[in-house]
């Protein structure tokens, strides 16, 4: 329609310029903004023991996405809670105000909190700490795409660091569908233009999916492809997490 560009009032919001710059990015044969292959994850970095005050903690860095998770407990449940012969898991995900390009826009806290809870509760042996609560607090220091998968993987590492009994480590990976291509471990720009996304959280050694979300329209073969891609990446991610734990354990022995 006429008068679309010129009539726009002057604005300090960076969004309209982003749109103009990035829109032609995802055409026929595009390259990912950070030069990765479609099926190539960002280099993952994990380190346990990031917070001294917590019973266990972990720091994760996937490209520019940086997350810190601390685990407190098991400690006595709040007095108001009813008696329970299994343990409770309490999760919280928050964003720093500077995590996003536009200040204070780290949205979906509540959704992320609920998703983190569901992703972890199936992996923790809650029977091992009756009447008590384990708190998992995640803070997204910098958000640059695939935040939730990074938070979940990092949280399971923090739980392991805290010595909470689990069936297996939990690894999480997402794929985005951008103009007919499946791209794994999408960054912020790719997530903004995705036609659909699929996130899998799984326990690789047990080959069990604890959490799964799909948005957008998917055909059956595409879902199969996406799931397989995620599961393979989860298995590889779990290996990195495991080696990080082993390293930490051998360091503490010395």
């Amino acid at each position, binding site marked *: 329609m006429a008068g679309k560009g010129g009539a726009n009032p002057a*604005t300090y919001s960076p969004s309209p310029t982003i*749109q103009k710059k990035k829109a032609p990015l995802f055409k026929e044969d595009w390259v990912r903004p950070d030069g990765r292959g479609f099926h190539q994850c960002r280099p993952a970095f994990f380190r346990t023991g990031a917070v001294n005050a917590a019973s266990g903690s972990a720091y994760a860095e996937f490209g520019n996405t940086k997350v810190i998770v601390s685990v407190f407990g098991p400690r006595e449940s709040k007095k108001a809670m009813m008696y329970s012969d299994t343990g409770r898991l309490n999760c919280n995900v928050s964003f720093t105000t500077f995590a996003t390009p536009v200040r204070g826009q780290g949205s979906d806290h509540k959704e992320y909190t609920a998703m983190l809870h569901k992703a972890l509760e199936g992996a923790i042996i809650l029977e091992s700490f009756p009447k008590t609560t384990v708190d998992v607090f995640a803070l997204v220091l910098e958000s640059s795409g695939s935040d939730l998968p990074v938070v979940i993987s990092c949280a399971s590492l923090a739980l392991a660091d805290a010595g909470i009994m689990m069936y297996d480590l939990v690894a999480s990976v997402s794929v985005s569908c951008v103009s007919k291509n499946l791209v794994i471990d999408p960054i912020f720009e790719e997530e903004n233009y*995705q036609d659909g996304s699929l996130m899998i959280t799984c326990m690789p050694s047990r080959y069990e999916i604890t959490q799964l*979300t799909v948005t957008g*329209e998917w055909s059956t073969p595409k*879902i199969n492809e996406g799931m397989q891609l995620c599961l393979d990446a989860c298995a590889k991610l779990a290996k990195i997490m495991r080696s990080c734990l082993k390293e930490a354990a051998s360091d503490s022995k010395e």
Partner: protein
Amino acid sequence: MVGLSLGEQHFIQGGIAQDLRCDGRKRLAYRPISVETGVIPQANGSARVRMGATDVIASVKAELGKPSLLQPNKGKVSIYIDCSSTAEPAFEGRGGDELSAELSTALQRCLLGGKSGAGAGIDLSSLVVIDGKICWDLYIDGLVVFSDGNLLDALGAAIKAALSNTGIPRVHVAAGASSDEKPEIDVSDEEFLQFDTSAVPVIITLTKVGKHYIVDATSEEESQMSSAVSISVNRQRCICGITKRGGAGLDPSIILDMISVAQHVSEQLINKLDSEIASAEAGDDDES
């Protein structure tokens, strides 16, 4: 929460294992569905759906608003679900918040598609009146009147019915006003545009109890579940969203199996819903 004795729990689980549930249904059979449309005259569209004892109302209100800067050629849709404390005492105060948030995000995921708007059940670009300036904001509100399990499927059906009942007033834009700062518009209160709901998917929740999964679980059956997967499927049998509930892990092959079962079940459910909606709409017209 449902208080069940050990005997009752075994009875439910055993029945599901033998493909004969407590109310005589098979594992993949729905309870009777009834649809009423136009139940809220104040709204642009509304519907009440009952699945067995589960009773939900959805309303659609349209308001004129401004499109977001990032997507100037799209309208906005927000979905909010309210779990009334009249439905269950546990929903009182903040008790229903968690469930409300879970249902709202699941429905948004199923109905609104990806971030780019592809695969959305509701065509957002049809809501634009003037590019970048005026669009319709749709507020979809769901209310849980009584909860007897399978809320998500019922709400999905209610929203589909409410959208097909929705009439959006035709807007006349004064000629030559498009380059002005504020275009003059005239909202007609006689002419209404019908909403195309053929692309709106249905949601099918498969609840896993023991080794088997069932559709349309009652709250008693839900209390026995290990996990549940809600899959939304449209008429083309494409998956429009998946949400998993319940903590227990699932084998990937089971999930793929569930998807194909959901695609199979969806066909019957869509046809059933469409005919219910059509007859409800017809009954509505007779009255007015």
